[in-house]
């Protein structure tokens, strides 16, 4: 079954960096203007707007902008707007926007993600600790944060421990993910990290939450990305080849927790990915470029298995065989990913995949890339998308 009724027509990403000192809206404006230019649209064409998660100060700088401020700043007169804090991961606004254009609520939806985590943390507030500083906390976070599992690195760490135990993966394999993505970053002037990372550097770095060390964790930055989702008929008028949203997967078969899923060597990604492939005739072998959520390196092998690029427990061999790095058959996160490029909560990964399909990625371009898969989220949070161009 093919969706084919929604397409990505433009993307933009601001000049991201650490401690940029620029307001979030300044980043957003840069990304939005880039996206409009790449689509060949003007702001008058934008009649919908959507974001994840909406304005929140749950952790410092995590989401400083809501749809209201962006509508105001850009002078948008929209027919439809929405923010999606509770959905299939950071991809939720793209999915909801696709549904909005397919049901005629809008024709061109500006989807955005803005973060100022780097500046916020430099200003003396601590790293991405949801709920820190509040006296009380509810919901799924309370079962983690209240007992001292304050960081997502803890949650990803215990998933990695179990995965290592069952399948014999070692830190060497995760090091291949980190160093491979750094090689890509060195071919991407926009990536935050521009120095080589050797396997020795990887092993020498301090431990954060075992078995995850410093280079297994992505990098907080300031920045913004914009993705324009258009109705298929409207997409034909845009400047570049429409990237058809061939299929979306957002199934979730387990609870909203990071510790109760019966098999913690799998995640929500596995449910969303199965759902994705059930909705298309495409197969993993048809994919040219992969954008896989790498908030922590361990998510990459888990997404590879979830999406069926290799079997359960086989990712370590798949990675060691050179499949996912530069020159590999299934290149992952060709812009350097969040590990080396900076954390734009999946939007940066999607931006890179779109640039690949448009042939705009210079030295790291994958030849004749036509089909990309994007998997966003970790733990119980997951959304998957397949993009294809003619």
């Amino acid at each position, binding site marked *: 079954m093919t969706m084919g009724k929604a397409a990505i027509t433009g993307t933009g990403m601001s000049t991201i960096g650490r401690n940029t000192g620029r307001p979030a809206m300044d980043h957003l404006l840069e990304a939005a203007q880039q996206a409009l230019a790449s689509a060949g649209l003007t702001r008058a064409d934008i009649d919908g707007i959507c974001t994840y998660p909406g304005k929140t100060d749950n952790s410092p700088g995590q989401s400083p902008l809501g749809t209201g401020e962006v509508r105001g700043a850009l002078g948008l007169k929209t027919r439809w707007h929405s923010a999606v804090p509770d959905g299939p991961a950071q991809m939720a606004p793209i999915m909801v926007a696709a549904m909005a254009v397919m049901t005629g609520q809008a024709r061109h939806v500006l989807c955005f993600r803005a973060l100022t985590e780097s500046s916020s943390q430099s200003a003396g507030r*601590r*790293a991405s*600790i949801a*709920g*820190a*500083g*509040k*006296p*009380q*906390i*509810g919901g*799924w976070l*309370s*079962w*983690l*944060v*209240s*007992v*001292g*599992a*304050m*960081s997502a*690195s*803890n949650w990803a*760490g*215990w*998933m*990695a*421990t*179990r995965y290592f*135990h069952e399948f014999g993966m070692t830190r060497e394999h995760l090091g291949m993910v980190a160093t491979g993505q750094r090689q890509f970053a060195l071919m991407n002037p926009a990536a935050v990290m521009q120095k080589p990372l050797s396997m020795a550097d990887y092993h020498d770095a*301090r*431990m*954060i*939450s*075992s*078995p*995850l060390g410093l280079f297994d964790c992505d990098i907080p930055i300031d920045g913004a990305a914009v993705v324009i989702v258009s109705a298929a008929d409207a997409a034909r008028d845009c400047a570049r080849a429409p990237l058809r949203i061939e299929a979306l997967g957002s199934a979730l078969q387990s*609870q909203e*927790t990071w*510790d*109760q899923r*019966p098999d*913690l060597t799998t995640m929500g990604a596995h449910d969303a990915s199965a759902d994705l492939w059930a909705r298309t005739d495409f197969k993993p072998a048809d994919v040219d470029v992969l954008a896989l959520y790498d908030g922590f390196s361990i998510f990459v092998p888990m997404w590879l298995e979830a999406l069926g690029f290799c079997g359960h427990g086989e990712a370590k061999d798949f990675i060691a065989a050179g499949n996912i790095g530069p020159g590999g058959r299934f290149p992952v996160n060709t812009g350097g990913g969040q590990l080396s490029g900076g954390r734009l909560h999946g939007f940066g990964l999607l931006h890179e995949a779109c640039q690949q399909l448009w042939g705009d990625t210079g030295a790291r371009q994958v030849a004749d890339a036509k089909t990309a898969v994007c998997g966003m989220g970790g733990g119980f949070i997951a959304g998957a998308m397949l993009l294809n161009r003619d």
Partner: protein
Amino acid sequence: MRPLPELTPENTAFWTGGARGELMIACCNDCNTAIHPPQIVCPACLSRNVAARAMAGTGTVYTFTVNHQPWLPDMAVPFALAVVDVDGAPGVRVTAPVISDQPETVQIGQRMQIRFEAAGDVWLPKWQPLETGACA
């Protein structure tokens, strides 16, 4: 400051059972399903006849991590966090810090005993390794 859990009708038994040293897990009185995080309705049979029961307070480490990063200024590191399969409550895990001077010695399969520490109006769980049973 570490935030404490907001008490709700669903979770009060869990977070206050420590006052008596009891690990309280919600269970369905109709079909015996153990429910965690606790709910007022049984997800297996939709019964509202759900109540917290005191468990033996022991369990087996399913997985763990050793945290080395002080996420808060007053956080002493390193410490282990264990995700423990709770005896008597199939499918239920309780995640808590491990009481140990040697967090690096925690292993999958290790047997644990629950302990509690009072904090505000709640009692936070901790896992203490049992001498008898390291069996990975």
